[in-house]
């Protein structure tokens, strides 16, 4: 029996130890589940094992022979392959299934120079039949469902004689039925003697599929079980000890006035009937695992995505959120999750980033920007959020993560926020800036309602008034933050508790 063993794996980035002396062993014919909260180091570990990081400390051995995984090719040669969460990055969408199956054959003369589509299809049909994966060989990949795309990548790995397969959150966007199909596929792989590293945040499926479990927390191995233990034990290992001093002491400023009410919001199968209301001065945390529908819900409220169904009431009046323009006019502002991609114009200055939504207010005749007025405004907002360095003429990309976030938040303080939607505002932010952002949120909540989408349960418990737990696009639990038990919340989010 062969095994893939990582020993003392360590990966440091400037300022962060993403992975700290982690040991892991994947044995052929077994499913090793790797669990952990966001930022626990799961994807860092995957990237090391797939050769994505050329530089890492520690050793990887296969059957006691040390292997060096410096490039993706090294991993491939050693029979290690991965099915990414974003499986599209591994496929060429405008080519057919058959062509994608033999992509690497086009890189060498192994199958000759001239390739006829007919032969390719025939070979694909035969190969897929042999491994028992019925896929339409001449369909273009872009027309496949997510599940079929995963199947295709797995099939391709099998044709390469994969020995160790890493499945990175494979079910995060699958329906229940599709997930079932995936599990039976995983069982087939086990029978073929493939060793599987199964990464997931969904604990309910761990007990269905896994043979052993490793829990990561803050880059370290928090626990290892050679069987699937009681899920409560896993949950305990996943959760951080509460860090009291990180969060500001906060008295609830909740008032009686309901500012916003959401009714039965639906979009594709990602948001399945979300309803809630929020009062002035309240902080409402929406928590749940990645892919639970938090981001989508916020985008629906902000009008960045058009809902299939559902109503939004602002101060009791129904508003059709057709676009962010309407939302902003109604005092609803969004700080998006991916600040570098969705939040900032990176090559523009902090000043321009701060004034972009309300630039109209600083314009004179024929839309000429009144520079002094704009500067003054930007400067005062930057001071309010304590931007560091407080240089509004610096390009947004040169600020640290936390200060970039402050720029995005401060832009909205220039308006009159009624409801501020924050999507993972402290992700990738260092501790000092985190503290400041929490303070800022509490301050904003004195006059407005704040919806805080976060996958950090401690964050939700510590600064919110109320907590909604989402799973599969639905609100599965509503609790008061005061005295809420993080373990209970995680059980709801991970599907252990219904």
């Amino acid at each position: 029996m062969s095994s893939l063993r990582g020993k003392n794996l360590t990966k440091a980035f400037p300022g962060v130890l993403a992975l700290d002396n982690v040991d892991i062993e994947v044995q052929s014919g077994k499913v090793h589940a790797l669990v952990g909260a966001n930022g626990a180091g799961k994807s860092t570990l995957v990237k090391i094992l797939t050769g994505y990081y050329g530089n890492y400390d520690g050793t990887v051995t296969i059957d006691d022979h040390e292997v060096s995984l410096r490039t993706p090719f090294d991993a491939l040669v050693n029979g290690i392959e991965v099915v990414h969460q974003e499986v599209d990055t591994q496929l060429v969408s405008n080519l057919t299934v058959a062509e994608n199956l033999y992509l690497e054959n086009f890189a060498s003369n192994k199958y000759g120079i001239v390739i006829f589509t007919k032969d390719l299809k025939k070979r694909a049909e035969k190969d897929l039949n042999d491994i028992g994966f019925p896929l339409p060989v001449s369909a273009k990949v872009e027309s496949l469902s997510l599940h079929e795309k995963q199947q295709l990548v797995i099939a391709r790995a099998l044709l390469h004689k994969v020995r160790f397969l890493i499945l990175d959150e494979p079910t995060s966007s699958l329906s229940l039925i599709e997930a079932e199909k995936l599990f039976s596929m995983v069982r087939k792989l086990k029978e073929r003697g493939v060793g599987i590293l199964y990464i997931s945040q969904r604990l309910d499926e761990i007990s269905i599929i896994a043979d052993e479990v490793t829990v990561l927390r803050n880059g370290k191995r928090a626990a290892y079980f050679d069987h699937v233990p009681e899920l409560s034990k896993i949950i305990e290992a996943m959760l951080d000890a509460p860090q009291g001093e990180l969060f500001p002491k906060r008295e609830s400023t909740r008032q009686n006035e309901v500012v916003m009410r959401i009714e039965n919001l639906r979009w594709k199968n990602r948001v399945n009937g979300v309803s809630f209301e929020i009062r002035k001065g309240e902080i409402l945390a929406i928590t749940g695992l990645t892919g639970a529908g938090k981001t989508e819900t916020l985008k629906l409220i902000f009008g960045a995505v058009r809902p299939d169904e559902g109503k939004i009431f602002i101060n009791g009046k129904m508003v059709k959120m057709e676009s962010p323009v309407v939302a902003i006019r109604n005092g609803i502002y969004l700080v998006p999750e991916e600040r570098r991609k969705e939040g900032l114009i990176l090559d523009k200055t902090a000043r321009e980033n701060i004034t972009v939504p309300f630039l109209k207010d600083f314009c004179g005749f024929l839309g000429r920007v009144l520079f002094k007025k704009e500067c003054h405004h930007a400067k005062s907002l930057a001071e309010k959020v304590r931007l560091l360095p407080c240089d509004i003429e610096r390009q947004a990309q040169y600020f640290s993560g936390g200060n970039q976030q402050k720029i995005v938040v401060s832009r909205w303080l220039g308006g009159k926020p009624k409801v501020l939607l924050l999507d993972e505002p402290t992700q990738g932010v260092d501790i000092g800036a985190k503290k400041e952002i929490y303070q800022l949120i509490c301050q904003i909540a004195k006059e407005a309602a704040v919806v805080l989408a976060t996958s950090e349960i401690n964050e939700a418990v510590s600064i919110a008034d109320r907590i909604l737990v989402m799973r599969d696009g639905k609100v599965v639990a509503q609790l008061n933050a005061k005295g809420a038990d993080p373990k209970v919340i995680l059980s709801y989010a991970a599907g252990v508790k219904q």
Partner: protein
Amino acid sequence: MKGDFTDRMTNFLLKYGVITALFILIVFFSVSTRAFFSLDNFFDILRAVSILTIVAIGVTFSVVVNGMDVSVGAVTGFAVIFSTALMVIWQIPWYIAIVGSLLIGVGIGLFNSFLILKLRIPDLLATLGTLYLTQGLQMWITKGDAVYRGMTNPWSPIREVTKGFIPKQFLTMGQGFIFKTESFRGVPVPVIIMICVVLVSWFFLEFTRFGRAFYAVGGNIEAARLAGIPVKKYRTAAYVISAVLATLGGLVLASRIGSGAVKAGDPYLLDAVASTYFGFAVLGVRRPNVWGTFLGAVFVGVMLNGLTMLNTPWYIQDFIKGLVLVSALGISFAIRKESR
């Protein structure tokens, strides 16, 4: 039933719309003008689009790898001046002029890929730079003059008259006919060259592993890289092929006009890009493909030829080209979106 019918019509329109339209056009022109439907006119049309097709197939290669080469028109023009200047001013044998021009074409392609892959200039900007560089060189070679027999040598201090000329062998490329019979004028040589380019490129892109790799690089560069495809080499190759085909187009053009006109290649840039994108619509594949590009060029050729015979004024021809391009792409992309 009805939905089924609409679906099938939509599919038919997507796949064969352009070809059907081409067919209708041919029937229409054949009925309304007497001269249109003849073998000679058929080859005239093909000859008229031959240079464009050759250049456009080069552009197709750059678009296949998800890039863009806007230097092709200038490179075509450069080849016109360079090859004729070699023969007329410096009296170099015609075959060396051809080989030399093609080698310079390879060089320009390598230069483009150097700018794009090594210096990481976005392709549109890099090839725009090359456009001006080659255009500038083109003018510089003759100090702005056209090249013709008996011109004064621009580089001679005493401005002596040049003794070189463009030989018959070279002119055959653009003006010759083969397979002549008593009743048949023959097939124009540029058409033969074009058909060779079309067939070879088609075979190369559709039936060889290299072609698949080209499409893979254009479709998802990361997936292609991880599959072990040397993506940089393929992108380099695409720009080299593009420049070489533009040069070949220039050589045929020089031979066709029999002298070296300045900036003769300019119109080919826009027409070549248009044909490539028109090719997206042909057969409904929505990706650059050789037959599509070829049929796109032929479609426009038939249209212009027929309209000329109908005495349509020359000044509305560009407008009609635009109309055809917009409607073909509109149909191809809009229908697709609806059915999703």
